[in-house]
C-alpha cells in the first residue's frame, strides 16, 4: 500500500516539477508571455481600427472575442513542447520522468497560460471595445473558465504532435482548428447567450457539451501521449 502511495506521490511530484520548470523558464525568458500579450494587443487594435468607431452588434462582438483568443492561443500555447525540441532537452525529460507526468505538467502549464491569456483578452476587450456588453455574468464567467480549460487541453496534445514535425508554426493552427471547432462553436453560442441576457439555465446544454469535450480530450490525450512522446 505504502509502495503504491509513494509511486502516486512521486508521479504528482514529477508532474509539478515539470510544471515548475516550465514556469520558471517562462519567467526568465518571458517568451510566450510577451508573444501572447503583444498578439492580443495587436489583434484588439486591428479590430478597433476596422470597426472605425462604428458599433457592431453584441452577437458579432461575442464571436470576435473568441477569434482573438483562438489565434492568440495558436501563437503562444505551442511553445511547451517545441521548446523541449529546440533546446534538445526532450530526451533527458523522457529518461527522467514518466510520460504521464510530463503530459500533466505541460497541461498544467498550458492551463495557467491559457487562463492568463483569456483573462487578459477579456479585460482588454471589455475596456476598449464599445458595445460589448454581458448581461448574464454567470454564463459568461463559466463559459470563459470552461473555454480556456478546453482550449488548453486540446492545444497541449496538438503541441506535442507538432513538436515532432518539420513545419511547426504553420501546422499548429491547421491541426488545431478542426479539433477545436466543436469547442469554439459552443463557447461562441454561450457567449452570445450571455450577451443577450439569457437566464443561466438556458446555457446548461452548452456547458454539458463543454464539460464532456474537456473530459474526452483529456482522457484521449493521456491515452495517446505515450505514443507521441516516446521515440
Amino acid at each position: 500500500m505504502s509502495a503504491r502511495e509513494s509511486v502516486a506521490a512521486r508521479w504528482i511530484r514529477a508532474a509539478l516539477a515539470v510544471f515548475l520548470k516550465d514556469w520558471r523558464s517562462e519567467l526568465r525568458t518571458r517568451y510566450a508571455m510577451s508573444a501572447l500579450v503583444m498578439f492580443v494587443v495587436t489583434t484588439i487594435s486591428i479590430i478597433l481600427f476596422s470597426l472605425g468607431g462604428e458599433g457592431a452588434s453584441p452577437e458579432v462582438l461575442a464571436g470576435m472575442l473568441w477569434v482573438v483568443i483562438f489565434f492568440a492561443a495558436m501563437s503562444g500555447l505551442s511553445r511547451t513542447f517545441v521548446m523541449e525540441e529546440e533546446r534538445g532537452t526532450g530526451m533527458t525529460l523522457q529518461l527522467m520522468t514518466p510520460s504521464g507526468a510530463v503530459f500533466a505538467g505541460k497541461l498544467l502549464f498550458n492551463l495557467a497560460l491559457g487562463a492568463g491569456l483569456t483573462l487578459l483578452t477579456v479585460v482588454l476587450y471589455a475596456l476598449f471595445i464599445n458595445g460589448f456588453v454581458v448581461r448574464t455574468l454567470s454564463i459568461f464567467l463559466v463559459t470563459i473558465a470552461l473555454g480556456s480549460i478546453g482550449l488548453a487541453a486540446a492545444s497541449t496534445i496538438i503541441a506535442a504532435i507538432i513538436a515532432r514535425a518539420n513545419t511547426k508554426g504553420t501546422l499548429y493552427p491547421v491541426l488545431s482548428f478542426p479539433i477545436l471547432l466543436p469547442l469554439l462553436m459552443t463557447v461562441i453560442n454561450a457567449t452570445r447567450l450571455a450577451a443577450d441576457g439569457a437566464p443561466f439555465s438556458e446555457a446548461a446544454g452548452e456547458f454539458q457539451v463543454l464539460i464532456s469535450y474537456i473530459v474526452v480530450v483529456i482522457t484521449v490525450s493521456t491515452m495517446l501521449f505515450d505514443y507521441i512522446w516516446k521515440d
Partner: protein
Amino acid sequence: MILRVLLGILLTLVIVAALGLPIVQQPQHWYEFPSIPGLEEKARIIFFHVPTAWLSVVAFLTSMVFGIRYLRRKDPEDDLTSASAAGLGLLFCVLATVTGAVWAKFNWGSFWNWDPRETSIFVLLLIYGAYFSLRSAVEVEEKRATLSSVYSILAAVTVPFFIFIMPRIMTGLHPGAAGDPDGAGPVIEFKMSPNMRVVFFSSLISFTLLFIWLLSLRVRTARLEYHLQSKG
C-alpha cells in the same frame, strides 16, 4: 476479376436506374418513381450524394481503426491502409461537398448556407486536409505513421459531435434536422417509395463495394512503393 466485373455491372445498373427511370406524378408501374413536390427531377441526387457522404465518413472511420491497429502492432502495412483510406475519404468528401453545393444552388438558392450538415462536411474536409499536411510535414516514416494515427484518433473522438449529433439537434435545411415536419431522423425513413428505396440501398451497397475495391488497389500500390523505396 469476376468480382470486378460484377461490381461494374451492379454500378452500371444503379446509375442507369438512378438517372433513367422516369419520375411521374402518379406512378402506375414498378419502375416509375413518385414525384416529390418541390424536388421533382432534383430528387435523383439522393442516389449519389448520400453514398458519397456516407463513404467519406466510413473512410474516416477505417483510417482511424487502422491507425489504432498501427499503434498496437507497429506494422507499416496498417499505416499504408490508414493513409490510403484517408485519401479515398478526401476524394469522396470533395465529391459529396461539390454535388451537394451544386444541388443546393438550384434547390435552396445558394451554393453554401452553413446548414449544420454543411458545417459538418466542411469540418471533415478540414480534418482530411490537416491529416495530410501533418503527414507531409514528418519525414521519418515511423514517426509520421504514429503521429497521423494519433491525430486521426483525436479527430475521431471530437468530430462525431458534428456529424451525428449537431445536424439532428439544430434546425437546418437537410432532412432529419430538428423542426423537420416529417420528423427528425434519417432521410431514408420517409418520402421514399419502395422502388426508390431499392435503388438507394443498391447504390449505397455498390458504392461501399467500390470503396473496398479502390482501397485494396491503393493499398497494393502503396505496398509496392514502400518495398521499392526500402530496397532502393
